[in-house]
C-alpha cells in the first residue's frame, strides 16, 4: 500500500524516538515523512539523537498499536455496558414496540464485541502496514483511542488533555470535541439546552481545560525551539497542502492539476469538508420526543429524521455513481482524464459539503455521541489533507461495535468488494506508474477516487442503517399502511 510513510527514513532504530517526540510536539513526520525536513526540525532531530538511543528500545510503534487496541477494548466494553443498561431501562419502561424484540441486542452477542474491536484493529492489514512503515499515524491513533477511552469513562480532564494532544498533532481531531462534549454532558445528566446555565458552565469548563492544555503544549514547543516557525511549518503544512506527493487521499492530484489562482478557493472547499459536520451540533436543535403511541393501533409513521437521510443518501449515491462512471470511462478511454476527474471531484466535493450541512442540521445526533465519533473519524480519514491507511484502520476498528446494524446495511457487499479490490490495486498501479513507468498518475488517482467513494458509501450506509434502526425502535419493525397491509420504507 502506498501510504506515504513508506519512504520513512529508516536509517537507525534511533529514529523512532525522534519521531515520537517530533510527532508529539509537531506532527511533522506524519505529514512530511518523506525525509524532507522543514524549518527547525533538522535541529530537533539532532537534539534528540541521544535521547533516542535511550528510549528507542522501550518505545516502539508496536507498543503504540497495542495501546490503541487496549484503549479501544476498554472503551468499547464500557460503552457496551452503558448501551445495555440503557436498553434495559427502556425495556422496563416499555418504550419499545413489541415487534422490535428482534432488534434488541442480547448480552451474548455483545460479549465478544470489545475483543473483536481490538482484533479488528490489530489484525487489520492497514494497521500492520502502518506499523511496518513506522508511520506516526500509529501514535496519533493511540492518542485518539486514549481520548475515546477517557471520554467514555467520563473523565473530563483527561479527555480534554488527550483531545488537545491529538489536536496538537494534526488539527483535524478538533472536530471530535463536539461528540466528547455531548457524551460527557449526557453522562452527567446535563441537558443540552442553550438556556440552561449548567450547559454553558460545562462547556466553559471543558473549553478551559482543552484550550489550557493546548496552550501549554504550544508554549512548550515554543520554549523548546525558541521560535514560532514551527506553526506554519506544521499547521500551515497541513492546511495549505504544499506537498503534493501522491497518497491515498483526494488532494494531491486535484491540487497538482489546478490553476494556481483557484488554489485558495478550493483549499477552503476541501478543508471545510472535514469541519462542516460538527457545526450543527453547536446549533441548538429542538428536541422532539417520540410521540406516544399505542401498541395495538399502529399510527401513521412519522419520518422526522428521514428527509435528511434521504437527501443525503440519494445525493451521495448519485454522486458516487456518477464519479464511478466517470472514473471507469476515464480509465477505459484514457482521454481527457484529468479534466473528467477534476470535474468529478469538484462536483463531488461541493455536493458533499451541501450534504454535510443538510445532514448535520437535520439529524439528531445528540443521543448517540459515540456513533458521532465513528462518523467523525471516518470523515477525517477521508477528507484530511494527507491521509494514510492507518487512519482508515482506526475507524474500521469500530465496525464490530455496530454489528447490530448489519441487517439494515444495503450496499455492504458492493462496498467491501470495491474496498478490497482497491486495496489490491493500489500497489499494482503504483508499481505500474512509478517503477514500470507504463501507467501514469491518472490510473492511480482513479483508484484513489474509487477507494474514497467506497469509503463514503460505507459510512453513509452505516449512517443510514443506524437511523433506520432508531426509527424502527420507535415505530415498530413491521410497518403497516393505513389499511393494515404490509409496507416498505422507500427513500425518495
Amino acid at each position, binding site marked *: 500500500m502506498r501510504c506515504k510513510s513508506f519512504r520513512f527514513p529508516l536509517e537507525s532504530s534511533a529514529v523512532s524516538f525522534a519521531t515520537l517526540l517530533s510527532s508529539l510536539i509537531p506532527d511533522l513526520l506524519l505529514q512530511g515523512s518523506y525525509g524532507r525536513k522543514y524549518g527547525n526540525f533538522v535541529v530537533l532531530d539532532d537534539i534528540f539523537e541521544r535521547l533516542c538511543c535511550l528510549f528507542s528500545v522501550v518505545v516502539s510503534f508496536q507498543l503504540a498499536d497495542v495501546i490503541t487496541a487496549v484503549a479501544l477494548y476498554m472503551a468499547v466494553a464500557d460503552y457496551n455496558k452503558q448501551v445495555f443498561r440503557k436498553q434495559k431501562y427502556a425495556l422496563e419502561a416499555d418504550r419499545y414496540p413489541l415487534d422490535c424484540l428482534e432488534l434488541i441486542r442480547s448480552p451474548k452477542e455483545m460479549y465478544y464485541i470489545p475483543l473483536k474491536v481490538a482484533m479488528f484493529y490489530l489484525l487489520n492489514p492497514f494497521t500492520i502496514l502502518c506499523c511496518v512503515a513506522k508511520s506516526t499515524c500509529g501514535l496519533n491513533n493511540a492518542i485518539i483511542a486514549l481520548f475515546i477511552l477517557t471520554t467514555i469513562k467520563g473523565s473530563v480532564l483527561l479527555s480534554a488533555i488527550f483531545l488537545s494532544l491529538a489536536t496538537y498533532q494534526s488539527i483535524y481531531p478538533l472536530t471530535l470535541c463536539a461528540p466528547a462534549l455531548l457524551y460527557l454532558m449526557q453522562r452527567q445528566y446535563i441537558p443540552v439546552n442553550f438556556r440552561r446555565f449548567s450547559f454553558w458552565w460545562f462547556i466553559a469548563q471543558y473549553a478551559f481545560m482543552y484550550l489550557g492544555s493546548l496552550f501549554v503544549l504550544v508554549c512548550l514547543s515554543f520554549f523548546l525551539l525558541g521560535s514560532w516557525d514551527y506553526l506554519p511549518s506544521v499547521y500551515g503544512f497541513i492546511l495549505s497542502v504544499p506537498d503534493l506527493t501522491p497518497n491515498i487521499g483526494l488532494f494531491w492530484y486535484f491540487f497538482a492539476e489546478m490553476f494556481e489562482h483557484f488554489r485558495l478557493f478550493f483549499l477552503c472547499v476541501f478543508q471545510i469538508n472535514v469541519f462542516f459536520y460538527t457545526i450543527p451540533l453547536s446549533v441548538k436543535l429542538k428536541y422532539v420526543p417520540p410521540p406516544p403511541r399505542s401498541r395495538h393501533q399502529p399510527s401513521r409513521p412519522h419520518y422526522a429524521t428521514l428527509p435528511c437521510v434521504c437527501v443525503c443518501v440519494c445525493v451521495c449515491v448519485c454522486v458516487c455513481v456518477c464519479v464511478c462512471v466517470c472514473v471507469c470511462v476515464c480509465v477505459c478511454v484514457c482521454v481527457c482524464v484529468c479534466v473528467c476527474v477534476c470535474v468529478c471531484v469538484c462536483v463531488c466535493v461541493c455536493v458533499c459539503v451541501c450534504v454535510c450541512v443538510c445532514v448535520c442540521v437535520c439529524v439528531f445526533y445528540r443521543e448517540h455521541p459515540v456513533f458521532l465519533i465513528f462518523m467523525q473519524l471516518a470523515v477525517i480519514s477521508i477528507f484530511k489533507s494527507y491521509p494514510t491507511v492507518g487512519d482508515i484502520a482506526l475507524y474500521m476498528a469500530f465496525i464490530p461495535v455496530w454489528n447490530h446494524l448489519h441487517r439494515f446495511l444495503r450496499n455492504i*457487499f458492493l462496498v467491501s468488494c470495491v474496498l478490497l479490490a482497491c486495496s489490491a490495486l493500489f500497489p499494482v498501479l503504483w508499481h505500474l506508474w512509478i517503477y514500470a513507468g507504463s501507467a501514469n498518475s491518472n490510473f492511480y488517482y482513479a483508484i484513489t477516487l474509487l477507494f474514497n467513494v467506497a469509503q463514503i458509501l460505507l459510512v453513509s450506509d452505516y449512517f443510514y442503517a443506524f437511523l433506520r434502526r432508531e426509527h424502527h425502535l420507535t415505530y415498530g419493525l413491521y410497518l403497516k399502511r393505513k389499511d393494515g397491509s404490509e*409496507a416498505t420504507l422507500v427513500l425518495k
Partner: protein
Amino acid sequence: MLRQRTHVTSRCGRVMDRRRSSEPRRQDRVTVDNNNMGLLSDPNRRRALLGLLTRLNAPICVVCYMAGVAWFMGLAFEPFTLRTYMSENAMGSTMVEERFPAGERALATGREFAAHKKKTGGMPVDWLVRTMQARGLEVFTQSFSRTLPFPDENKERYMVKGTNVYGILRAPRAPRTEALVLSAPCNPGDENNQAVGLLLGLAQYFRNQIFLAKDVIFLVNEHDLIGMQAWLEGYHHTNTTGMDWSPLQGRGGSIQAALSLELSSDIITSLDLVLEGLNGQLPNLDLANLFYAFCQKIGVLCTIQGKLQRNDWDSVSGYSHAVQTMMLMVMKQASGRPWGDHGLFLRYHIEAATIKGINSFRQYKTDATTIGRLLEGMYRKLNNLLERLHQSYFFYLMPSLSHFVSIGYYMPAFGLLAVILLLRALDLWVQLMTPPPRTEDGVIDIEQSSPGVLSVLTPLVISHLTGVALYMLPVRFQEMAVEHFPVSETEAVVLTAIAVYTAGLALPHNTHRLLAGEGTEQGWRVLKLVAVLYLAVLLGCTALINFSLGFILALTLVPVAAFVTPHVPKVLSAFILVILSPACTLLFSVFFFQELQEMPVSFQDGWVLYLSVISQGILDHVLYGSLVYPLIALLVYPCWLLFWNILFWK
C-alpha cells in the same frame, strides 16, 4: 411554502406496497419520479435487479464468457483496430537524410571479430577494446560472474563468467546528461558477428558526425541477458538479483532509449521487431512506429513475430494471419520472459526493442549498408527527443506492424470474463443472506446459519502452504533429489515442481482431517465466495500488469470458478478441473505456441519442451526477477486449489 414542505414529507415517507399480488398497487400519494435515485437506494428496484441477476445468473455468465472470447477474437479484425501513428512531435516531422556508407567495411570488421572470437574461444575483449578505442570511443569493460541455481540445459551454462565491453561516444553538441544505447550480444559460435561489425561501423560513422546531442553507448554484452543484467545493474547502481559484477568505470547520461541488434548473415531479407520484455512489459508504441516508419522509408521488409503484414484483411486467410500474429504476441507476453536482449532495459524506464535480421528464401534482399542507414535514421530521430518517449501507448497488442489495439479496446474482453466472477459472487452472497427457512417452533438452526471461521480458514492456509512449498522446494531440494534419483539437476527441479503440484491435489482429504466437524452447506458457499473474490482481484491485478497472462488465466480459471460446487458429478468435474488447471494451461500453451509458429511438435517433443519451459520459468525468476513463476506458485495455484477443495467438500 407549507405545501411544498408537506409534499417533501410525503415524498420521503412514502410507504409502498410490498406484496407482489396481481391487484394494482394503490397509490394514494403523489408519485414522484425518481430518476436521480439510482438502483442502489430503491428497495423495489434493487429487489427486481437482484431477482433478475440471480434467476438468470447462469445464462448471463455463459453469454459473458462467449462475448469476452468473441471480443478478444475480434481485436485482430482490421476495421476494429487503429493504424499506428507517430505521437511524439520531436520524432514526427523532422526530415533526416541517412548517409551511412560503410556497410561492406562493417561486414569486414564483423569477420575480423569472428576470427578473433574463434581464436580466444570467447569474447575477444582486448581486440574489442582496441578496435573501439581506434574508433575514438571511451572504452570500458565490466566483468561479472554468476552461478545459476541449477544448470541451464537450453544454453548449456551453469557457472557463468564474462565481460561486457562498452564504448561511450560523448555528445559533441550538448551537456552529456542523456544517452542512447546500441547493443549487440556476443554469442558463442558463428552468430551475431555481423551485428558486432555493424555496431562498430556505426560507432565510427557517428564519431564523425556533429549532430549528436546525446551520448551514444555501444555495448557488446557477453552471455546475452546475464551480461545485460550485470551491465544495467552496474549502470544504475542496483543489485536486485545478487549477481557479482565489477562497478562501471565510465557512464553516460540517463539512458533514453536502447536498441539491441541481432544479425547473423551478410544479407538479410527482412527485419523483425521484438518488443516483449520482462514480465510482459512493452516499450512505448512510438518506438515501434519509428522502426516501421523507417522501414517504409528505406524500403526494407519488416515483420513482427516473424509475420509480414498482409493487405487482404477482409479475407479469411488474412484475418487468421492477423489472429496468428496477435496470438503470438499474447503468448510471448504472457510468458513474462524477455524475448530479446532489450527486455531488461524496460525495467529501468528505458524504451527498448530488439531488431533481428532474418535471412529466408525471399527474393528481396537487403545489404548491411541499408540496415546501417536504417539504424542511423532511427538514432538521429531518437537523438531529437526532448523528453522520454511517453506520448504514445504502453499497453497495446499488435495484430500487424501497422495496426495496434490499445488498452481501452482489449480490456473489455477481460472485463467480460471478470464480470462472471462478480456475478457468481453476488449470487452466492444473495444465497448466503437469504435467511434460512424457519422451523415450526421459530428456532433457526444456528449451526446451519453460521459456518465456523475455521472451516474457511483451514483450506485457505493449507492451499497457500502448498503454494509456498511449490515455490521453495524445487530449487532447495535439487541436491537431495539428485542423490536419490537418477536424474540431472535440471530434471530434478522440474520433476520436484510437478510432484509438489500433483501432491497438492490430495489436499482436500488432508484439510478435512484437520477440520473438527462436517462441512456445512453454508461452509462451502462462504469458501467459494472468498475464492471467487480472491480470483477476481488476482486476475484483475495480473491483467493490469500483464494483460496476456491475465487473460489466458481468466480464460481457463473463470469457467472453473463459475461452475464448481460439491454437487456436480465428481469424476467428470475433477477431470475438467485438472484440464483447466494452471499447469495444463501451460502444457496447452506450449503446443499452441508451436502451432502458431508453424512448427508443430509431436507429443513427446512437446513434453520435453514443456519441462524445459518450466525450468526456464524458474531460471527467469531467479536470474532476472520475472514474476510469473511466483505468481503462479504462490497465488494462482492456491486459488485453484480452493476450487478443487470445494469440489470435494464433505
